[in-house]
């Protein structure tokens, strides 16, 4: 008996053959003792394994088992609610223990920009204005805080510096 036929007999025993093929194998088992023996053997073996499925249970207590699941659920929910901040950025407020710093830095930036822009006699004309360092021209200056982002733009034709301050989501 070749391998293909053995597997067909197995499929017949498992009820996996189409009607026409099932009929062919059924007929074969009536005339071929080896085919019949294999079919009976497979049936007996299948019952033996199914009726004696090994049982396994958890040693841990209900509370312990559940506590790890609950932690996992909460961890996943926290991760979904707020993606983890990049290292070295948002960790600053948490290190100092308050949100006041989140407002202090952008406020200082705005105040500095306003001081230089509105200082009497210091308003540069298009002719006298010194070119700003490239870093401030049309360039996003990131706050070291993940929650707040500032965007600073200098227009040389209008001799004006504009600073937008907002939450990171806006930008």
């Amino acid at each position: 008996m070749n391998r293909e036929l053995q597997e067909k007999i197995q499929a017949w025993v498992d009820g996996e053959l189409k009607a026409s093929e099932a009929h062919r194998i059924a007929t074969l088992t009536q005339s071929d003792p080896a085919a019949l023996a294999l079919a009976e053997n497979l049936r007996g073996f299948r019952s033996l394994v199914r009726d004696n499925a090994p049982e396994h249970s958890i040693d841990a207590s209900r509370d312990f088992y559940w506590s790890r699941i609950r932690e996992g659920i909460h961890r996943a929910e926290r991760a979904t609610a707020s993606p983890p901040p990049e290292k070295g950025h948002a960790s600053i407020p948490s290190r100092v223990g308050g949100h006041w710093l989140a407002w202090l830095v952008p406020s200082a930036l705005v105040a500095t920009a306003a001081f230089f822009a509105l200082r009497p006699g210091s308003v540069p004309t298009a002719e006298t204005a010194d070119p700003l360092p490239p870093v401030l021209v049309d360039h996003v200056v990131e706050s070291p805080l993940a929650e707040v982002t500032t965007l600073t733009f200098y227009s040389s034709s209008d001799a004006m510096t504009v600073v937008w301050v907002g939450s990171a989501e806006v930008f």
Partner: protein
Amino acid sequence: MASPTDEQLVHASQGGDMAAFEELVARHRDKMFARAFRIVRQQDEAMDLSQEAWIKGWQRIAQFEGESSFATWMTRITINLCLDHLRRNQRYRVDPLPDYQDDNTGLDRLLPPVWTNPTERLERHELRQRIDAALAKLSDAHRTVLVLHEFEDLGYKEIAQTVGISIGTVMSRLFYARRRLAILLAGIQDEEKPS
């Protein structure tokens, strides 16, 4: 007062009731652990994977529409996680088939008949242990197909889709796994046959 049914607990869980979900976990945790253990055969891994399955179950509970029982739905999540785990760890290799291709004779050797007396509890307990030990000796790939067919009652097509192999491969792995398991269990026949 009657305890709530699974359906009621599922409904409450879908509304965000975590206590209801905890009750579902308590009811079915052993089943999910056993399913994971049958596939990965490592206590700690089975524990972790079954817990991970419950976390996914909670996250997806809103998608459960009750086409099958809750236990069946959770079983599918558990099995998929276990299969992913085997693939990730490159444990999904198939043993070569020694002396199989040309083994056209000796049906007794092919699938040794196993005599058992199901009325004897101790014998049955021992038989289960022997089957368990024999299952542990199969490769992950063969054992998975056998477990899905015999214990999870999946058909060839479902196994093929779940594992990601052809139906022909399911058939040959199943045949080989049965044959190998029968050979490993053959000792039982000699020990338990009435003299």
